[in-house]
């Protein structure tokens, strides 16, 4: 199978340890996604897949780290525009889960994303054109591949930047300044 685990992670104990070690990256990714889209007119680069527009919608949870995390759950048409979400960021919370709309070149996808697992939840797919079950199945699976491909590619772009201090340092600086000034709302 392609895209499989590296050889050394076949040991289940070490794999569990490795996964737990970087669970925080998912929450950092979702927070960076908010920053990136807000500071680039809602646009985010998805590598070879091109540019996508990202819109945060209806539901946003912001969590603190630690053994007893505090959670702010913001429900609003545009939850990123609320004072509560901005204050939570300033307090050091990061995005734990959110609903977003991805406007890609050919399709729009509504989905929820969980930071801890990067599981994609409740995807509203574009209406399938096919009517026969087999064709409809293939079409829906292609759409799921497309939306997962977009999310995974943007996440991989974030991680590549995050793991290199030279590329990450300026982003860290801008991100902290953005949090401090309460975002770039119009």
């Amino acid at each position: 199978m392609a895209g499989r685990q590296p050889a050394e992670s076949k040991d289940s104990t070490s794999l569990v340890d490795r996964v737990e070690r970087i669970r925080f990256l998912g929450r950092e990714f979702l927070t960076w996604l908010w920053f990136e889209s807000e500071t680039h007119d809602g646009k985010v680069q998805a590598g070879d897949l091109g540019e996508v527009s990202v819109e945060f919608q209806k539901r946003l949870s912001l969590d603190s780290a630690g053994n007893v995390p505090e959670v702010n759950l913001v429900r609003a048409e545009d939850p990123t525009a609320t004072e509560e979400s901005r204050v939570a960021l300033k307090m050091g919370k990061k995005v734990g889960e959110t609903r977003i709309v991805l406007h890609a070149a050919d399709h729009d996808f509504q989905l929820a994303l969980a930071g801890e697992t990067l599981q994609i939840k409740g995807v509203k797919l574009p209406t399938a054109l096919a009517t026969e079950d087999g064709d409809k199945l293939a079409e829906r699976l292609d759409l799921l591949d497309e939306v997962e491909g977009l999310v995974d590619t943007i996440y991989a772009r974030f991680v590549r930047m995050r793991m290199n201090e030279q590329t990450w340092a300026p982003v860290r600086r801008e991100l902290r300044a953005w949090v401090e000034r309460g975002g770039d709302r119009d």
Partner: protein
Amino acid sequence: MALLNGTATYTRFRLLGDLPDGFEERFVGALERHAFKEIDPDADVERHLGWVRWGDAFDSSWEPHTLVNGDGVMVLTLRIDTLKVPPVTLKAYVAQAEREMRRKLSRERLTKPERDMLRIEVQKKLRRRSLPKMQLVEVVANLSTGEARLFSSSKRVVADFQDLFHKTFGLRAIGSNPLTVLWGQGFSDLDQDQVIGLEPERFHQVPE
């Protein structure tokens, strides 16, 4: 069927393990061994699960040449049946049976063994009259990319799926997480080690 209509709620997995030579033949045999079997109402089992064909809850037959399509995709359904008499219903019927038995024996009380036996008999009778609650959960495994999707987010169903998938195919299904997503994104072993070494970042200013 969630795969064909409406909002897609599912759980993503990465598959760990190697595909044996001639895996299609082996997989068909394994699927038949772990195929869904109806619950026997006389037995003491409340929940049964196993594989059925996608699109037909009553068909557990597969062919090696059609099991996996040209893109390496295998579509199955996990059928989970639960046959359980609701506690309130059971209690009412047991009480009724006890009244009848007391009248028949012309006694005011029944012994504990008599009451226990009666309860088991009533439960069996009610189970024979009941239809199991059927849950059909679709599974799509891509054996070329090493990914799988289970169209449920229930923790219990996810655990059942991981267990049965491993028993059936010898492949472990690991729920999506910030590490496994990188496996499909060209991160080398060295890159991954570097990622594992990262420390959490602070995004807010700390007052001096």
